């Protein structure tokens, strides 16, 4: 699978080639990514593992168009992301990407429902559609009864589920999750994973997920290992435990 990036495959959704990222400049410069090549096909479920500081989050942020690489090519669904303007990248995020952060990043003092509806608002959906689609997403993460609670009234697991609902509410092509279970106990962690697996299986959403835990990574069909800003190995996984 390692040479997938070099051959043109019709169903490749994401292709990174030679991606580098350098933080700072001069003598203090630090190269967090040193030439990443990675191809992900539509419908895959990929786990990214690796030691702390190996550049996993950096890569995820670039994949999610939240950050720009220092050099290299990023082709998303045939589009060269590195040539896009800020606004075009915003539209790419709005229409095709969903991002789940380790720290949830929900709006403070805002209800679960409003948080989930926010991406729909930017897509210009009307009130009725926002309520309908938003509630549907909340139901799919099992939080329909919690719609009117604000973030501070929800547990960590519930907040993460709200964040997932917000990420999938626009029915994105790709869901990017940076340590989605990092702040949760293992029982809640496995609930979240079941949710992601069903998203992947039932809705065909491509998922890339960073994790430190092997039993969480085991849900994915493919595991990519990062070491020192490079991909060390990239294996098919046996499947869910």
């Amino acid at each position, binding site marked *: 699978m390692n040479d997938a990036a070099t051959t043109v495959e019709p169903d490749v959704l994401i292709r990174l080639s030679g991606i580098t990222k350098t933080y700072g400049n001069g003598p203090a410069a630090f190269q967090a990514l040193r030439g990443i090549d990675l191809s992900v096909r539509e419908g895959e479920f990929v786990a990214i593992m690796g030691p702390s500081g190996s550049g996993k989050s950096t890569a995820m942020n670039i994949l999610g168009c939240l950050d720009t690489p220092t050099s290299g090519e990023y082709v998303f669904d045939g589009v060269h992301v590195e040539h896009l303007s800020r*606004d075009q990248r915003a539209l790419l*995020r709005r229409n095709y990407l969903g991002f789940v952060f380790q720290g949830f990043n929900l709006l403070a003092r805002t209800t679960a429902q409003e948080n989930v509806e926010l991406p729909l608002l930017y897509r210009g959906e009307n009130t009725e559609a926002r309520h309908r689609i938003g509630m549907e997403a909340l139901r799919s993460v099992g939080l329909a009864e919690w719609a009117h609670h604000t973030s501070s009234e929800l547990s960590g697991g519930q907040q993460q589920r709200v964040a997932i609902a917000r990420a999938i509410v626009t029915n994105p092509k790709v869901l990017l999750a940076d340590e989605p279970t990092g702040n949760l106990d293992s029982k809640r962690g496995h609930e979240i994973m079941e949710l992601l697996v069903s998203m992947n299986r039932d809705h065909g959403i491509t998922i890339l997920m960073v994790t430190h835990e092997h039993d969480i990574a085991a849900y994915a069909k493919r595991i990519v290992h990062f070491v020192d800003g490079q991909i060390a190995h990239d294996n098919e996984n046996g499947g869910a435990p």
Partner: protein
Amino acid sequence: MMGWTTLLLALREIRRNLMRSFLTVLGIVIGVAAVVTMVTLGNGATQSVSDQISSLGSNLLMLRPGQRMGPGSSSGAPNFKAEDAEAIKTQVGSLKAVAPTVSRTSVVVVGTKNWATSITGSNSDYFTSGNWTLEDGRYFSATEERAGKAVCVIGATVRKELFESHSPVGDTLRIKQFSCEVIGVLAAKGQSAMGRDQDDTVVMPLRTVQRRLTGKQDVTTILISMQDGASTEQVTNQLTVLMRERRKLSDNEEDNFSIRDTKEIAQTLSGAIGTMTALLGAVAAVSLLVGGIGIMNIMLVSVTERTREIGIRLAIGAMEKEVLMQFLTEAVVLSAFGGLVGLLLAAIACYGLASMLSLPFLFSPSINLLAFGFSAAIGVIFGYVPARRAAQLDPIEALRHE
């Protein structure tokens, strides 16, 4: 994204952060209300002084013994006599009225009511020189003046304090041990430029007051009203020469009397009030500025939270301009609301204070606009500029903001 959605987002954020919104609005409200109230009242005060200048009547000179300004004679300069006024009337040209006056404060009694007021003795020229008009009855006649009859003309305040609604003309009032017939009531003139109630007065023939109240032949002030178009300088010069002669001053002695142009006094006073208004306006402007700094502070304190919020919005696909429009709308709504409340508050305060201080309420569109514009500008700038900085970050940097 449509304007409507932006407005919705902005209103939601305002409601969600009620305390922050309230403090922002408060800063603007206080600033605007203070500036507008101060300046409006100041304008009213200036206006009321200039009204009084015209009510003084043009060309009124005041001749007093002594050199110093202020009430009473100083350094033992001798008072005038009624004959001085006679001499002025006959020897100085271009005069309309010459009124020798002497005043005393005394308690006036009618039935069971009493009232302390200023009793002035003069002749009928007094009413001409002071621009008085009658509301009821008549002024005293030359015969009454000469005879020193116990008759009086009362001011509106005295009438209000001592008499019921019926006409007091023909009634008598008692001053010390003598009683006096009311023959006229003066039309109200209101406060003087110095803030004294001009209607709190009783006027009698000069001789009556000299005989029954002061017991002396002295006259403390001579009011001289010039004809229209007369030269103040010429009249003053003639008066000076005449008075020096009558008071037997040799060439090397200084004048032991002074001639003041009341118009000049009033103009000086209105200048002083103008300065006060400017000063109050400046103080109020500082309060507007302090309000602005308060707003700035609140905005800066919330900038971390807001930067994260902006990061979240950008991350889920908001474009920079959409985020900026939301923040701009928020700032405009808050500032405009605060500004309007401030203007409303100022209008109420001005209305109340103006009637309390009996000043005219002069609505000035320019100061309202200025205060509103300034406060709105502060709100918008400090609400918008930090947001713009945040919205220009990469989403991940905004999210990382500590």
